[in-house]
């Protein structure tokens, strides 16, 4: 059977979405209806994320940091936080650490966070 017309309004390739879905260990088969919907909702998602990032950016150039900001601020986007960290410079990182030290924070969580951030900052070092 050929591809139904309803799928013509999709941009993303169904075959690729199917491959990604099947890479999940719990998925054996994907029927055409759930495949269509997952593809559709992924397009809605990317549109929504881009629009929000653009709205917050206040510029005419959409940059990585605009998207990372939305991701880090919306709890529903928690699943993206690890793949889209905020990038900071070493100077910002040091300021952040100084502030933390001043407040005398020493929870385990914050020390974990800071080690992640320092990795990021070393790759994005501008100082």
């Amino acid at each position: 059977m050929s591809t139904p017309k309803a799928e013509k309004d999709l941009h993303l390739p169904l075959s690729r979405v199917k491959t990604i879905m099947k890479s999940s260990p719990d998925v054996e088969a994907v029927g055409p209806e759930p495949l269509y919907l997952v593809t559709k909702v992924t397009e809605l998602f990317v549109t929504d994320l881009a629009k929000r990032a653009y709205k917050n950016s206040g510029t005419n150039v959409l940059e990585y940091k605009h998207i990372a900001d939305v991701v880090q601020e919306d709890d529903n986007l928690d699943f993206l936080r690890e793949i889209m960290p905020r990038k900071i410079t070493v100077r910002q990182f040091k300021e952040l650490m100084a502030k933390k030290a001043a407040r005398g924070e020493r929870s385990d969580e914050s020390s974990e966070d800071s080690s992640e951030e320092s990795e990021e900052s070393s790759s994005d070092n501008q100082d």
Partner: protein
Amino acid sequence: MAEKLEDLNLPLTVVTRIVKEALPEGVSISKEARTGLAKAASVFVLYVTSAATNIVEKKKKKALTGQIVLDAMKDIEFDRFIEPLTQSLEQYKQLMSARKSGGKKKDDDEPEVIEDD
């Protein structure tokens, strides 16, 4: 099956096209932003898939259905996508049934294979 690692990513050019259509004309999108959005979209596919398979398991369903994908939206708190998605599902179902009644071939058990254009 995924043969190469790139097969687990959505194509950058297609994601960029979707984003460009969503934003006002003249807005430029940095390369890093494009890659980031494509990556986010790919991870989203898996996120939705796992939310949906959770429902399949919990409710002891046999297979993934369109309705389960819709229910999964609620679980991951993307309720705002439910309405547009329900509309899409309706359109899709209408088209499929129109095709079935219009075509000579009867609906058999043979799973439908969807190929790329």
